[in-house]
């Protein structure tokens, strides 16, 4: 089945991608940071321009992955109503690696109404309403400059990107917490296979805000240092922000291909809202479904980019899930210590890491982790390794027990 699918018109390829995180803007910045093991987490001194007039310090003892220069990004004048940290970050990412032009060309080639737009976010423009609450008047009224539809609403970034690029096909925002922008690949591939679209711009964006920093703090999941995934004394997550985009097309129509989207698997934990199943049962189901759809067995997988948040429970559960499917045969790593946990943008950012590993022929290790927790039975790479492989997986798991595994295959 795999071979027929690979050569058939049903095969869907990633023809382009870009990503912007704390390690820098665009693919080259990500590749260099990974290759040189240059992480970008730093102590939290988050003071976005929205909150500066209020002079209030929200000190949260943790490390974050903040993207440089988001405050200074200017949206196109005609789309100024969409101005908020989340859309500035989306716009910044869209400018890298020629992605904005590529999206416009996609509309020209296929017709704007034949291009789908599926993005993922967890918090959308939440920073904007945090600003509006700081600026409330005595009657509790929000300032008139607060624009709900263009900023806070969950669909805001998709509406903004559609307006900016002219994409007019089926559009939706997926918001399943930390699996959001992994699931966009599955949803867009389904739209293409069902002939509801000929191509798709997928991606995700999530930006730092006080609610996520406070919320993860209240759950006692924030690390006081830069996160150390899978370390025996790991102490929680470092939150980051970022955005990324990818283009999906049918293989015969694509003018180039980074890799094939070989498979995807989605599942639910049905266990707890914010704690994974201890044996990673839901994660196993997602991994096995991705393998089945790709038509491959566990031995054909050469590298797995883990969700690896560096919480006690996530890493233990994921390690057991991976071990149940692969034993300790397949090299795995978590790259969250480079740029943090991007929540709704984690899926697209780590898909970008996985595609980088596949095409640059090296597997990144696990930054900041001196040695693997012996209680985690998976094969964890600590150091980077030169590695050529044909298939790589990327895991993304979220609150509400939402799991997604993507399978990318070398496509020559």
């Amino acid at each position, binding site marked *: 089945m795999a071979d027929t699918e690979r050569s058939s018109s049903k095969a869907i390829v990633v023809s382009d991608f870009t990503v912007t995180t704390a390690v820098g803007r665009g693919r080259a910045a990500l590749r260099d940071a990974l290759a040189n093991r240059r992480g970008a987490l730093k102590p939290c001194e988050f003071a976005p321009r929205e909150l500066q007039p209020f002079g209030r310090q929200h000190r949260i003892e943790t490390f974050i992955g903040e993207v440089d220069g988001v405050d200074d990004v200017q949206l196109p004048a005609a789309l100024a109503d969409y101005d908020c940290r989340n859309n500035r970050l989306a716009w910044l990412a869209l400018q890298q690696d020629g992605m904005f032009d590529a999206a416009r060309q996609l509309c020209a080639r296929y017709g704007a109404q034949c291009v789908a737009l599926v993005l993922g976010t967890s918090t959308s423009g939440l920073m904007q309403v945090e600003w509006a609450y700081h600026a409330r008047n005595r009657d509790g009224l929000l300032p008139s400059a607060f624009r709900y539809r263009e900023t806070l609403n969950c669909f805001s970034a998709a509406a903004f990107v559609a307006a900016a690029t002219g994409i007019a096909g089926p559009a939706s925002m997926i918001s399943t917490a930390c699996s959001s922008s992994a699931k966009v690949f599955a949803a867009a591939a389904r739209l293409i296979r069902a002939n509801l679209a000929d191509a798709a711009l997928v991606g995700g964006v999530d930006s730092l805000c006080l609610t996520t920093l406070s*919320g993860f703090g209240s759950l006692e999941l924030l690390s006081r240092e830069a996160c150390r995934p899978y370390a025996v004394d790991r102490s929680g997550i470092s939150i980051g922000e970022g955005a990324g985009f990818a283009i999906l097309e049918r293989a015969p129509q694509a003018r180039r291909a980074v890799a094939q989207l070989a498979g995807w698997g989605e599942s639910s934990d*049905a266990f707890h809202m914010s704690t994974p199943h201890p044996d990673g049962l839901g994660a196993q189901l997602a991994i096995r479904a991705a393998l089945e759809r790709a038509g491959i067995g566990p031995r054909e997988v050469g590298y797995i980019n883990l969700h690896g948040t560096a919480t006690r429970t996530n890493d233990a559960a994921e390690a057991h899930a991976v071990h149940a499917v692969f034993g300790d045969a397949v090299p795995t790593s978590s790259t969250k210590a480079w740029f943090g946990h991007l929540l709704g943008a984690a899926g697209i950012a780590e898909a970008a890491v996985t595609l980088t590993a596949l095409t640059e022929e090296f597997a990144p290790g696990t930054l900041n982790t001196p040695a693997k927790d012996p209680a985690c039975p998976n094969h964890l790479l600590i150091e980077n390794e030169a590695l050529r492989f044909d298939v790589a997986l990327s895991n993304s798991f979220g609150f509400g*027990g939402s799991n997604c595994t993507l399978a990318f295959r070398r496509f020559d």
Partner: protein
Amino acid sequence: MKLCVVGIGVWSPSIGSWPALRARLLGSVTAISAANVPPAGLPPANWLPPAERRRATTGTRVVLSVAEEALTQAGFDPVVTPSVFTSSAGSPETTDPICAQIAGGDTQISPIRFHNSVHNAAAGYYSIAVGCRESSTSIAAHDASAAAGLLEAAAQLDDCGGPLLFVSFDVPYTGSLVAARPIAESWAIALALLPSPAAALATLELTVSALTAEEAHCADPHLEFLRTGNPTARLLPLLGVIAGGASQRVTLALPTGGSLAIDVKPC
């Protein structure tokens, strides 16, 4: 693309559940009276364990309630039924208290309120309540959330076959956000779906058009008020045609322009 509606679940505070809405849509009931007074407060959400029911958000309770109604009617086993949830804002009642607390300088927000704030919270509670480990997605598309969700459901049925649970729900914001995004009462609509003709209530043939077309309306003024005031209630004209047993086209606006034509046929 075809899909078959095998079960329907509805909840709204001013109408009640599907049998009450059906009567209203058919014109046999034209106003609230003592005989058809809707249930006060929140729906029962029988599938939620009592401890969860107490702390669940309105969104979670309406979702559990309509899912039970639709799946029971369809005879689907919830444990093996994947799901598509769509909502403009998920559980918006968490936003005002969290933002007010943070603006007051207090970052110790309630952990339960925080995990209830994610867009897929209702989907998460649902999967836990029924023990379903199947695929579940949660999407949003502002006022066109229901249409975008139907399209996602159709694409999933095309890809994986059935059964599938589709749920659209929208509940109001609270506090300072009510004025910024007014939502007319709490609405949830569930459809139990199969890909091919079955002993169904209706088949829906979905066609995407690049042309912007006028959306279907409701003749009943109260229902029309709800349709324009709550994104989930945009599905009321569709339910009206299904209730009436006619063959008719219903048009919904898509999120970024264009329209979704739904050709309804009785089975």
